[in-house]
Protein backbone atom coordinates (compact mmCIF):
# COMPACT_ATOMS: atom_id res chain seq x y z
CA UNK A 1 0.00 0.00 0.00
CA UNK A 2 1.59 3.29 -1.08
CA UNK A 3 -0.24 6.25 0.48
CA UNK A 4 -0.50 9.36 -1.60
CA UNK A 5 1.42 12.49 -0.66
CA UNK A 6 -0.23 14.53 2.05
CA UNK A 7 -0.94 18.20 2.22
CA UNK A 8 -1.18 19.95 5.52
CA UNK A 9 -4.95 20.02 5.10
CA UNK A 10 -6.07 16.43 4.40
CA UNK A 11 -4.68 12.94 3.98
CA UNK A 12 -5.54 10.13 1.60
CA UNK A 13 -4.25 6.87 3.05
CA UNK A 14 -4.24 4.84 -0.18
CA UNK A 15 -4.52 5.77 -3.87
CA UNK A 16 -7.63 3.58 -4.19
CA UNK A 17 -9.48 5.44 -1.40
CA UNK A 18 -12.52 7.51 -2.36
CA UNK A 19 -12.36 9.67 0.77
CA UNK A 20 -9.79 11.97 2.32
CA UNK A 21 -9.59 12.78 6.03
CA UNK A 22 -9.19 16.36 7.24
CA UNK A 23 -6.16 17.10 9.40
CA UNK A 24 -7.31 20.60 10.31
CA UNK A 25 -10.69 22.37 10.33
CA UNK A 26 -11.65 22.85 6.68
CA UNK A 27 -14.27 25.29 5.47
CA UNK A 28 -16.99 24.86 2.89
CA UNK A 29 -15.80 26.31 -0.40
CA UNK A 30 -12.08 25.52 0.18
CA UNK A 31 -10.35 23.75 -2.70
CA UNK A 32 -8.26 20.85 -1.37
CA UNK A 33 -5.64 19.22 -3.58
CA UNK A 34 -5.18 15.49 -3.13
CA UNK A 35 -3.41 13.08 -5.46
CA UNK A 36 -6.84 11.73 -6.42
CA UNK A 37 -8.33 15.07 -7.44
CA UNK A 38 -8.65 18.71 -6.49
CA UNK A 39 -11.94 18.96 -4.69
CA UNK A 40 -14.09 21.92 -3.66
CA UNK A 41 -15.64 21.29 -0.25
CA UNK A 42 -19.42 21.39 -0.07
CA UNK A 43 -19.42 21.45 3.74
CA UNK A 44 -17.27 22.41 6.70
CA UNK A 45 -15.13 19.37 7.59
CA UNK A 46 -13.82 19.15 11.19
CA UNK A 47 -10.39 17.55 11.82
CA UNK A 48 -10.62 13.74 11.73
CA UNK A 49 -13.73 13.84 9.52
CA UNK A 50 -13.90 12.63 5.94
CA UNK A 51 -14.92 14.11 2.60
CA UNK A 52 -15.36 12.38 -0.74
CA UNK A 53 -12.66 12.75 -3.37
CA UNK A 54 -14.76 10.85 -5.94
CA UNK A 55 -18.50 10.47 -6.44
CA UNK A 56 -19.91 7.53 -4.43
CA UNK A 57 -23.33 6.31 -5.63
CA UNK A 58 -25.76 4.88 -3.06
CA UNK A 59 -24.94 1.28 -2.17
CA UNK A 60 -21.31 1.61 -3.25
CA UNK A 61 -18.44 1.14 -0.81
CA UNK A 62 -16.82 4.04 0.98
CA UNK A 63 -13.13 3.11 0.69
CA UNK A 64 -10.40 4.08 3.15
CA UNK A 65 -7.13 2.22 3.81
CA UNK A 66 -7.91 0.50 0.46
CA UNK A 67 -10.79 -1.32 2.21
CA UNK A 68 -14.55 -0.79 2.43
CA UNK A 69 -15.40 0.99 5.68
CA UNK A 70 -19.12 1.12 4.91
CA UNK A 71 -21.60 1.79 2.11
CA UNK A 72 -23.07 5.07 0.90
CA UNK A 73 -26.71 5.37 1.92
CA UNK A 74 -27.27 8.43 -0.29
CA UNK A 75 -25.52 9.77 -3.41
CA UNK A 76 -22.24 11.37 -2.32
CA UNK A 77 -20.59 13.96 -4.54
CA UNK A 78 -16.90 14.94 -4.43
CA UNK A 79 -16.32 17.45 -1.63
CA UNK A 80 -19.23 16.18 0.47
CA UNK A 81 -18.85 15.34 4.15
CA UNK A 82 -18.91 11.54 4.58
CA UNK A 83 -20.10 10.36 8.00
CA UNK A 84 -22.89 8.63 9.88
CA UNK A 85 -25.61 10.46 7.93
CA UNK A 86 -24.61 8.97 4.56
CA UNK A 87 -22.33 6.00 5.33
CA UNK A 88 -23.49 2.79 7.03
CA UNK A 89 -21.46 0.00 8.55
CA UNK A 90 -21.60 -3.39 6.81
CA UNK A 91 -21.24 -5.23 10.07
CA UNK A 92 -24.62 -6.80 10.87
CA UNK A 93 -26.27 -6.16 14.23
CA UNK A 94 -24.81 -4.68 17.37
CA UNK A 95 -22.96 -7.40 19.20
CA UNK A 96 -25.32 -10.17 18.12
CA UNK A 97 -25.40 -11.43 14.55
CA UNK A 98 -22.38 -12.64 12.65
CA UNK A 99 -22.18 -13.38 8.93
Amino acid at each position, binding site marked *: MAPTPTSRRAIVLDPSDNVATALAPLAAGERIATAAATVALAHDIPP*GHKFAVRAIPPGQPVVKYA*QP*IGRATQPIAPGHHVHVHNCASQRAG*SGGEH*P
Partner: protein
Amino acid sequence: MHFQGFPRADGAAGTRHLVVVLPTVACSSHVATRIASAVPGAIAIAHQHGCAQIGDDAATTFRTLAGIGASPNVAAVLVVGLGCEQVQADALADAVGASGTPVAVVGIQHEGGTSSAVARGAALLRELAATVGPATRQPCPLDQLILATECGGSDAFSGLTANPLVGRIADRAVDAGATVIVSETTEFIGAEHLLPPRGVTPEIGEQARQMVLDCERSCCRYGADLTGSNPSPGNIEGGLTTIEEKSLGCLAKAGSSPIAEVLPYAQRPARRGLVLMDTPGNDVESIAGMAAGGASLILFTTGRGTPLGCPVAPVVKIATNTPLAERMAENIDFNAGAIADGSTTLDKAADALWRLTLAVASGRLTAAERLGHREFGIRRTAPTL
Protein backbone atom coordinates in the same frame (compact mmCIF):
# COMPACT_ATOMS: atom_id res chain seq x y z
CA MET B 1 20.48 -5.34 6.11
CA HIS B 2 21.70 -5.79 9.69
CA PHE B 3 21.43 -4.46 13.19
CA GLN B 4 23.98 -4.75 16.00
CA GLY B 5 22.51 -7.37 18.27
CA PHE B 6 22.96 -10.56 20.25
CA PRO B 7 22.58 -13.85 18.39
CA ARG B 8 20.93 -16.48 20.63
CA ALA B 9 21.07 -20.25 20.57
CA ASP B 10 17.54 -20.61 19.21
CA GLY B 11 18.24 -18.59 16.05
CA ALA B 12 16.66 -15.30 17.08
CA ALA B 13 18.75 -12.20 17.82
CA GLY B 14 18.19 -9.83 20.73
CA THR B 15 18.32 -6.08 20.91
CA ARG B 16 19.24 -6.17 24.62
CA HIS B 17 21.39 -8.41 26.82
CA LEU B 18 19.53 -8.73 30.13
CA VAL B 19 20.04 -10.78 33.25
CA VAL B 20 16.58 -11.50 34.59
CA VAL B 21 15.24 -12.73 37.93
CA LEU B 22 11.93 -14.46 37.34
CA PRO B 23 9.63 -15.30 40.25
CA THR B 24 7.31 -18.24 39.58
CA VAL B 25 4.58 -16.76 41.72
CA ALA B 26 3.42 -13.59 43.51
CA CYS B 27 4.80 -15.00 46.77
CA SER B 28 8.38 -15.07 45.51
CA SER B 29 8.29 -11.68 43.82
CA HIS B 30 9.75 -9.62 46.65
CA VAL B 31 12.63 -12.04 47.14
CA ALA B 32 13.25 -11.91 43.38
CA THR B 33 13.39 -8.12 43.54
CA ARG B 34 15.85 -8.19 46.45
CA ILE B 35 18.07 -10.67 44.59
CA ALA B 36 18.11 -8.53 41.44
CA SER B 37 19.54 -5.59 43.35
CA ALA B 38 22.68 -7.69 43.97
CA VAL B 39 23.77 -7.41 40.34
CA PRO B 40 23.88 -4.00 38.64
CA GLY B 41 21.52 -3.96 35.68
CA ALA B 42 19.71 -7.18 36.61
CA ILE B 43 15.94 -6.97 36.32
CA ALA B 44 13.33 -8.71 38.47
CA ILE B 45 9.91 -9.26 36.91
CA ALA B 46 7.49 -9.17 39.85
CA HIS B 47 3.96 -10.33 39.11
CA GLN B 48 0.72 -11.37 40.77
CA HIS B 49 0.08 -14.80 39.28
CA GLY B 50 1.36 -18.35 39.45
CA CYS B 51 -0.97 -20.05 41.91
CA ALA B 52 -4.62 -20.91 42.50
CA GLN B 53 -5.29 -20.31 38.80
CA ILE B 54 -7.97 -22.28 36.94
CA GLY B 55 -9.15 -22.65 33.36
CA ASP B 56 -6.35 -21.76 30.94
CA ASP B 57 -4.76 -19.29 33.33
CA ALA B 58 -2.11 -21.52 34.93
CA ALA B 59 -0.90 -22.62 31.49
CA THR B 60 -0.98 -19.04 30.23
CA THR B 61 1.08 -17.85 33.19
CA PHE B 62 3.61 -20.63 32.68
CA ARG B 63 3.86 -20.03 28.94
CA THR B 64 4.27 -16.28 29.46
CA LEU B 65 6.99 -16.61 32.09
CA ALA B 66 8.80 -19.24 30.04
CA GLY B 67 8.56 -17.05 26.95
CA ILE B 68 9.93 -14.04 28.83
CA GLY B 69 12.82 -16.15 30.12
CA ALA B 70 13.51 -17.42 26.60
CA SER B 71 13.25 -13.96 25.04
CA PRO B 72 16.01 -13.07 22.57
CA ASN B 73 16.75 -10.08 24.81
CA VAL B 74 17.43 -12.21 27.88
CA ALA B 75 20.97 -13.51 28.36
CA ALA B 76 20.43 -15.46 31.61
CA VAL B 77 17.62 -16.23 34.06
CA LEU B 78 17.42 -16.97 37.77
CA VAL B 79 14.08 -18.56 38.59
CA VAL B 80 12.87 -17.87 42.14
CA GLY B 81 10.28 -20.27 43.48
CA LEU B 82 8.44 -20.54 46.76
CA GLY B 83 7.98 -24.33 46.78
CA CYS B 84 4.27 -25.10 46.92
CA GLU B 85 3.02 -22.98 44.04
CA GLN B 86 1.24 -24.12 40.92
CA VAL B 87 3.94 -22.86 38.55
CA GLN B 88 6.88 -25.01 39.66
CA ALA B 89 10.35 -23.49 39.53
CA ASP B 90 12.13 -26.55 38.11
CA ALA B 91 9.61 -26.93 35.31
CA LEU B 92 9.91 -23.23 34.46
CA ALA B 93 13.71 -23.43 34.51
CA ASP B 94 13.60 -26.45 32.17
CA ALA B 95 11.35 -24.58 29.75
CA VAL B 96 13.64 -21.55 29.72
CA GLY B 97 16.73 -23.74 29.46
CA ALA B 98 15.34 -25.56 26.43
CA SER B 99 15.90 -22.35 24.43
CA GLY B 100 19.61 -22.47 25.29
CA THR B 101 19.47 -19.65 27.84
CA PRO B 102 21.62 -20.21 30.95
CA VAL B 103 19.29 -20.67 33.93
CA ALA B 104 19.52 -21.36 37.68
CA VAL B 105 16.91 -21.92 40.38
CA VAL B 106 16.51 -20.92 44.02
CA GLY B 107 13.56 -21.83 46.27
CA ILE B 108 12.45 -19.88 49.34
CA GLN B 109 11.05 -22.84 51.27
CA HIS B 110 14.08 -24.97 50.39
CA GLU B 111 16.56 -22.29 51.52
CA GLY B 112 14.67 -21.56 54.72
CA GLY B 113 13.18 -18.11 54.24
CA THR B 114 13.74 -14.67 52.79
CA SER B 115 17.29 -13.87 53.85
CA SER B 116 18.74 -17.27 53.00
CA ALA B 117 17.00 -17.29 49.64
CA VAL B 118 18.22 -13.77 48.89
CA ALA B 119 21.80 -14.69 49.80
CA ARG B 120 21.79 -17.91 47.78
CA GLY B 121 19.98 -16.25 44.87
CA ALA B 122 22.42 -13.34 44.78
CA ALA B 123 25.34 -15.74 44.62
CA LEU B 124 23.74 -17.69 41.76
CA LEU B 125 22.86 -14.48 39.96
CA ARG B 126 26.44 -13.21 40.13
CA GLU B 127 27.64 -16.50 38.68
CA LEU B 128 25.10 -16.30 35.85
CA ALA B 129 26.07 -12.71 35.08
CA ALA B 130 29.74 -13.69 35.00
CA THR B 131 28.96 -16.62 32.67
CA VAL B 132 27.20 -14.52 30.06
CA GLY B 133 29.58 -11.60 30.36
CA PRO B 134 29.13 -8.04 29.20
CA ALA B 135 27.09 -7.05 26.19
CA THR B 136 29.07 -7.42 22.96
CA ARG B 137 27.01 -6.64 19.89
CA GLN B 138 27.50 -8.30 16.51
CA PRO B 139 25.95 -7.69 13.11
CA CYS B 140 22.71 -9.71 12.98
CA PRO B 141 20.52 -10.09 9.88
CA LEU B 142 17.04 -8.68 10.17
CA ASP B 143 15.46 -12.10 9.61
CA GLN B 144 16.49 -12.87 13.20
CA LEU B 145 14.45 -9.97 14.55
CA ILE B 146 10.94 -10.18 15.99
CA LEU B 147 9.16 -6.81 16.25
CA ALA B 148 5.84 -6.05 17.90
CA THR B 149 3.34 -3.27 17.23
CA GLU B 150 0.94 -1.77 19.75
CA CYS B 151 -1.44 1.17 20.02
CA GLY B 152 -2.57 2.64 23.34
CA GLY B 153 -4.32 5.81 24.40
CA SER B 154 -5.46 6.18 20.78
CA ASP B 155 -7.02 9.36 19.45
CA ALA B 156 -8.54 10.54 16.15
CA PHE B 157 -5.07 10.81 14.62
CA SER B 158 -3.89 7.29 15.48
CA GLY B 159 -5.37 5.87 12.29
CA LEU B 160 -4.15 8.79 10.19
CA THR B 161 -0.52 9.30 11.14
CA ALA B 162 1.19 6.98 13.58
CA ASN B 163 -0.53 3.69 12.75
CA PRO B 164 -0.07 3.95 8.95
CA LEU B 165 3.51 5.02 9.66
CA VAL B 166 4.18 1.95 11.80
CA GLY B 167 2.53 -0.08 9.04
CA ARG B 168 5.23 1.16 6.65
CA ILE B 169 7.88 -0.02 9.13
CA ALA B 170 6.12 -3.37 9.48
CA ASP B 171 6.19 -3.76 5.68
CA ARG B 172 9.90 -2.96 5.50
CA ALA B 173 10.65 -5.36 8.33
CA VAL B 174 8.67 -8.19 6.74
CA ASP B 175 10.29 -7.53 3.37
CA ALA B 176 13.69 -7.83 5.08
CA GLY B 177 12.70 -11.25 6.46
CA ALA B 178 11.80 -10.18 10.00
CA THR B 179 8.72 -11.23 11.95
CA VAL B 180 6.18 -8.63 13.06
CA ILE B 181 3.56 -9.39 15.70
CA VAL B 182 0.27 -7.48 15.76
CA SER B 183 -2.23 -8.15 18.55
CA GLU B 184 -5.12 -6.64 20.58
CA THR B 185 -7.94 -8.91 19.46
CA THR B 186 -10.63 -6.71 21.02
CA GLU B 187 -9.76 -3.94 18.54
CA PHE B 188 -10.98 -6.13 15.67
CA ILE B 189 -14.41 -6.93 17.08
CA GLY B 190 -16.87 -5.62 14.51
CA ALA B 191 -14.33 -5.77 11.70
CA GLU B 192 -13.45 -9.46 11.82
CA HIS B 193 -15.10 -9.97 8.41
CA LEU B 194 -12.19 -8.00 6.96
CA LEU B 195 -9.62 -10.53 8.18
CA PRO B 196 -10.20 -13.65 6.01
CA PRO B 197 -8.82 -12.07 2.81
CA ARG B 198 -5.74 -10.96 4.77
CA GLY B 199 -4.47 -14.48 5.48
CA VAL B 200 -1.73 -16.15 3.41
CA THR B 201 -4.30 -18.93 3.03
CA PRO B 202 -8.09 -18.83 3.40
CA GLU B 203 -7.72 -21.16 6.42
CA ILE B 204 -5.46 -18.73 8.25
CA GLY B 205 -7.75 -15.84 7.40
CA GLU B 206 -10.70 -17.77 8.80
CA GLN B 207 -8.69 -18.70 11.90
CA ALA B 208 -8.11 -14.97 12.47
CA ARG B 209 -11.82 -14.26 12.11
CA GLN B 210 -12.77 -17.03 14.55
CA MET B 211 -10.22 -15.77 17.07
CA VAL B 212 -12.02 -12.40 17.08
CA LEU B 213 -15.48 -13.98 17.34
CA ASP B 214 -14.33 -16.16 20.26
CA CYS B 215 -13.04 -13.05 21.98
CA GLU B 216 -16.35 -11.27 21.51
CA ARG B 217 -18.32 -14.26 22.82
CA SER B 218 -16.22 -14.46 25.95
CA CYS B 219 -16.52 -10.72 26.61
CA CYS B 220 -20.30 -10.94 26.08
CA ARG B 221 -20.47 -13.61 28.77
CA TYR B 222 -19.56 -10.89 31.24
CA GLY B 223 -22.09 -8.47 29.82
CA ALA B 224 -19.62 -6.24 28.02
CA ASP B 225 -21.25 -4.84 24.87
CA LEU B 226 -18.40 -4.17 22.52
CA THR B 227 -20.14 -3.24 19.28
CA GLY B 228 -23.42 -1.63 20.34
CA SER B 229 -21.67 1.58 21.26
CA ASN B 230 -18.65 1.25 19.04
CA PRO B 231 -17.62 3.69 17.61
CA SER B 232 -18.43 5.59 20.79
CA PRO B 233 -20.06 9.02 20.78
CA GLY B 234 -16.60 10.51 21.32
CA ASN B 235 -15.23 8.54 18.37
CA ILE B 236 -18.11 9.74 16.18
CA GLU B 237 -17.59 13.32 17.23
CA GLY B 238 -13.95 12.87 16.30
CA GLY B 239 -14.84 11.65 12.80
CA LEU B 240 -14.86 7.84 13.03
CA THR B 241 -17.98 6.67 11.18
CA THR B 242 -18.04 2.87 11.44
CA ILE B 243 -16.47 0.05 13.43
CA GLU B 244 -14.70 -1.01 10.22
CA GLU B 245 -13.01 2.36 9.95
CA LYS B 246 -11.95 2.28 13.58
CA SER B 247 -10.57 -1.25 13.35
CA LEU B 248 -8.80 -0.59 10.06
CA GLY B 249 -7.19 2.45 11.63
CA CYS B 250 -5.83 0.12 14.30
CA LEU B 251 -4.88 -2.64 11.84
CA ALA B 252 -3.02 -0.05 9.74
CA LYS B 253 -0.03 -0.51 12.02
CA ALA B 254 0.30 -4.09 10.71
CA GLY B 255 1.03 -2.79 7.21
CA SER B 256 -0.03 -4.64 4.08
CA SER B 257 1.63 -8.05 4.44
CA PRO B 258 -0.61 -11.12 4.53
CA ILE B 259 -1.09 -12.76 7.94
CA ALA B 260 1.17 -15.80 8.06
CA GLU B 261 0.10 -17.24 11.41
CA VAL B 262 -2.50 -16.81 14.16
CA LEU B 263 -1.07 -17.38 17.63
CA PRO B 264 -2.41 -17.85 21.14
CA TYR B 265 -1.26 -15.43 23.82
CA ALA B 266 2.48 -15.57 24.58
CA GLN B 267 3.28 -18.14 21.92
CA ARG B 268 6.50 -17.83 19.88
CA PRO B 269 5.75 -17.61 16.14
CA ALA B 270 6.73 -20.60 14.04
CA ARG B 271 6.51 -18.57 10.81
CA ARG B 272 8.25 -15.45 9.58
CA GLY B 273 6.40 -12.42 8.34
CA LEU B 274 3.31 -10.77 9.81
CA VAL B 275 1.62 -12.77 12.58
CA LEU B 276 -1.50 -12.09 14.63
CA MET B 277 -1.42 -12.88 18.36
CA ASP B 278 -4.53 -13.17 20.51
CA THR B 279 -4.12 -10.63 23.29
CA PRO B 280 -6.42 -8.25 25.16
CA GLY B 281 -6.49 -4.61 24.11
CA ASN B 282 -5.05 -3.85 27.57
CA ASP B 283 -1.61 -2.45 26.73
CA VAL B 284 0.36 -3.97 29.59
CA GLU B 285 -0.94 -7.50 29.00
CA SER B 286 -0.66 -7.17 25.25
CA ILE B 287 2.99 -6.11 25.39
CA ALA B 288 3.80 -8.84 27.92
CA GLY B 289 2.25 -11.45 25.61
CA MET B 290 4.20 -10.26 22.57
CA ALA B 291 7.44 -10.03 24.55
CA ALA B 292 6.84 -13.60 25.72
CA GLY B 293 6.37 -14.48 22.06
CA GLY B 294 9.91 -13.31 21.44
CA ALA B 295 9.38 -9.67 20.46
CA SER B 296 12.66 -7.87 21.07
CA LEU B 297 11.47 -4.36 20.14
CA ILE B 298 8.02 -2.82 20.38
CA LEU B 299 6.67 0.06 18.24
CA PHE B 300 3.92 1.73 20.27
CA THR B 301 1.66 4.50 18.95
CA THR B 302 -0.18 6.83 21.30
CA GLY B 303 -2.43 9.85 20.88
CA ARG B 304 -3.36 10.65 24.48
CA GLY B 305 0.10 9.71 25.84
CA THR B 306 1.14 6.66 27.82
CA PRO B 307 4.56 6.15 29.44
CA LEU B 308 4.47 2.33 29.36
CA GLY B 309 7.61 0.27 28.93
CA CYS B 310 8.43 -3.43 29.13
CA PRO B 311 10.95 -5.21 31.36
CA VAL B 312 12.57 -7.20 28.54
CA ALA B 313 12.12 -5.12 25.39
CA PRO B 314 12.63 -1.49 24.35
CA VAL B 315 9.33 0.26 23.63
CA VAL B 316 9.58 2.98 20.96
CA LYS B 317 6.81 5.49 21.74
CA ILE B 318 5.35 7.25 18.69
CA ALA B 319 3.08 10.26 19.12
CA THR B 320 0.15 10.62 16.73
CA ASN B 321 0.04 14.39 17.12
CA THR B 322 2.48 17.22 17.76
CA PRO B 323 0.79 18.73 20.86
CA LEU B 324 1.29 15.40 22.64
CA ALA B 325 4.89 15.10 21.46
CA GLU B 326 5.54 18.51 22.97
CA ARG B 327 3.53 18.13 26.17
CA MET B 328 4.95 14.67 27.05
CA ALA B 329 8.28 15.15 25.32
CA GLU B 330 10.19 13.11 27.88
CA ASN B 331 8.09 10.02 27.08
CA ILE B 332 8.03 10.27 23.29
CA ASP B 333 10.65 8.87 20.91
CA PHE B 334 9.13 9.92 17.59
CA ASN B 335 6.53 12.45 16.51
CA ALA B 336 4.29 11.14 13.73
CA GLY B 337 2.19 14.27 14.22
CA ALA B 338 4.62 16.02 11.91
CA ILE B 339 2.81 14.21 9.06
CA ALA B 340 -0.44 15.93 10.03
CA ASP B 341 1.30 19.31 10.35
CA GLY B 342 2.62 18.97 6.83
CA SER B 343 6.22 19.36 8.02
CA THR B 344 7.04 15.87 6.76
CA THR B 345 5.53 13.26 4.49
CA LEU B 346 4.63 9.67 5.32
CA ASP B 347 7.56 8.52 3.12
CA LYS B 348 10.13 10.72 4.84
CA ALA B 349 8.76 9.87 8.29
CA ALA B 350 8.99 6.17 7.41
CA ASP B 351 12.67 6.59 6.49
CA ALA B 352 13.35 8.38 9.77
CA LEU B 353 11.41 5.89 11.91
CA TRP B 354 13.13 2.97 10.18
CA ARG B 355 16.51 4.47 11.02
CA LEU B 356 15.39 5.00 14.62
CA THR B 357 14.09 1.42 14.86
CA LEU B 358 17.43 0.02 13.70
CA ALA B 359 19.26 2.36 16.09
CA VAL B 360 17.13 1.22 19.04
CA ALA B 361 17.62 -2.41 18.01
CA SER B 362 21.36 -1.71 18.00
CA GLY B 363 21.43 -0.23 21.49
CA ARG B 364 20.01 3.30 21.53
CA LEU B 365 17.85 3.69 24.67
CA THR B 366 14.19 4.62 24.39
CA ALA B 367 12.45 7.20 26.58
CA ALA B 368 10.70 4.42 28.53
CA GLU B 369 14.05 2.73 29.23
CA ARG B 370 15.69 5.98 30.37
CA LEU B 371 12.76 6.62 32.72
CA GLY B 372 12.78 3.08 34.08
CA HIS B 373 9.30 2.00 32.92
CA ARG B 374 8.97 -1.79 33.16
CA GLU B 375 5.25 -2.43 33.45
CA PHE B 376 4.28 -6.10 33.32
CA GLY B 377 1.05 -8.06 33.60
CA ILE B 378 -0.17 -11.46 32.39
CA ARG B 379 -3.52 -12.04 30.74
CA ARG B 380 -6.05 -14.03 32.73
CA THR B 381 -9.60 -15.10 31.95
CA ALA B 382 -10.84 -17.05 34.98
CA PRO B 383 -11.20 -16.31 38.69
CA THR B 384 -8.44 -17.07 41.17
CA LEU B 385 -9.38 -19.71 43.70
